[in-house]
């Protein structure tokens, strides 16, 4: 098995987390004060501190920071994979940021981004990332597991699914001024998928705050599913009873299913999913079932026909 849990973490590696949060809070306040005089400016990534390094990792070599931050899909900023890094940093203001949590839960509410992640210790997880377009990366995310974040809102027995929504603001996300997809972008998970220990809310990568093009300030990371499930720049989390329809399911019902688990045996109409190009490598690799996370997640789908539930 490729997953490892870090065992020996030196005390010195665990920098003071209060310091990190104070810094963010200060920046938020400063940005708010500055906003009285100046237009808000896009965020510059700063170093993150106080996270547990390599809490989970894989044997594969991480993809370069350059590639991760210049080659990705984020149609809110354009449909070329170089568009997000070209256009997002100039326009995408991510402070202040809050997330509304609603639906089938005991304690709904709107929470500032900092307060949403504060109760859970930050950690680094190096995950494989597999795009449905048959390319892949290895990304050192920093963030928090999703489950403890969700539990705080006390999801009820009718919370069978979780729906996530990206910001809708064509001023900050210029790609939304064209009807390429039915904005805002929406994604969903079954509640047990959302509560799975691998499911992660990333706020940084390579030890820095997430850059706008990668889904700042917080995005989902579901490493055993195709990348488009890992919704970026989340503003709403809803506990719902019925399976939500996602943006890509609407755009192409034959192409994108609700589950979208990485599966080399079920081809997408456009791409064979048997192999993938790891960014930075010449030869294609064989794609692993559940992106190599089968030991942890296969049990979620026991008895399900993964061909029908693609």
């Amino acid at each position: 098995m490729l997953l490892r849990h870090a065992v020996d973490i030196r005390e010195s590696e665990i920098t003071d987390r209060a310091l990190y949060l104070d810094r963010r809070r200060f920046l938020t306040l400063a940005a708010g004060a500055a906003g009285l005089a100046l237009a808000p400016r896009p965020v510059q990534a700063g170093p993150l501190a106080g996270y547990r390094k390599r809490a989970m990792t894989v044997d594969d070599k991480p993809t370069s920071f350059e590639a991760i931050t210049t080659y990705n899909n984020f149609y809110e900023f354009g449909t070329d994979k170089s568009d997000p890094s070209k256009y997002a940093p100039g326009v995408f203001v991510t402070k202040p940021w809050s997330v509304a949590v609603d639906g089938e839960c005991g304690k709904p509410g709107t929470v500032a981004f900092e307060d949403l992640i504060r109760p859970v210790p930050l950690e680094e997880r190096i995950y494989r990332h597999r795009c449905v377009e048959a390319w892949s990366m290895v990304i050192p995310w920093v963030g928090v597991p999703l489950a403890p974040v969700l539990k705080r809102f006390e999801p009820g027995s009718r919370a069978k699914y979780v729906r996530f929504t990206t910001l809708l603001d064509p001023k900050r996300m210029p790609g939304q001024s064209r009807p390429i997809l039915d904005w805002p972008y929406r994604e969903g998970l079954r509640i047990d998928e959302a509560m799975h220990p691998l499911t992660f809310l990333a706020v940084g990568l390579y030890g820095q705050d997430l850059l706008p093009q990668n889904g700042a300030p917080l995005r989902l990371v579901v490493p055993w599913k195709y990348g488009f499930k890992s919704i970026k720049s989340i503003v709403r989390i809803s506990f719902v009873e019925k399976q939500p329809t996602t943006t890509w399911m609407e755009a192409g019902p034959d192409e994108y299913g609700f589950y979208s688990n990485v599966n080399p045996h079920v081809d997408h109409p456009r791409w064979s999913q048997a192999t993938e190009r790891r960014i930075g490598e010449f030869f294609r690799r064989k794609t692993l079932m559940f992106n190599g996370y089968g030991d942890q997640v296969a049990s979620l789908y026991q008895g399900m026909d993964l061909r029908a539930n693609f």
Partner: protein
Amino acid sequence: MSRALRLAKPAVFAVSLLPLVWVAWLAVAGGLGANPIEALNRFLGDWALRFLLVALAVTPVRRLTGWAAVGRLRRMLGLFAFFYAVLHVSSYVGLDQFFDWQAIGKDILKRHYITVGMAALTLLVPLAATSTQSMIRRVGGRNWRRLHRAVYVITPLAVVHFWMMVKADHSRPLVYGVVAALLLAVRLPRFLGPAGRT
């Protein structure tokens, strides 16, 4: 051959090679981004389609301007379309799939945009093969003209190939589609009219 044409031919030839020079330079200089194989493949496909459209524009331009000599560039431009199409497919076969013939065969059968693209390239082959003077003579002018009308099918196939490949934002294939449709539409009156041939 007029003097202008004698100068124009090598100039057009050199200009037509510029995209290849440019992409070769990008590849060497690391300017193709994080996924250079994909970038190269897209670049070559774009230029194959552009040359198809430019070649298709020759006859309408000749008729509009009355400059007969421009017609003499058509063969070269058509052959450049074939040249970039072959490079486009070669980059898919040799770089993207690294000669995995089984995967390529499956792609052609199952990925419809690849099926359509391969059909377009296959149809281009007899056109390129009959582009020499001696082949034109052997085939015969009338048959040759009939055969080369295949480009009226090939160009839409190439646009459809691009259209199908795109996931959601069809603005670029739409532009190519509109240009192709115009270039085909201007031929319709002659095609349907009493002259009956182009």
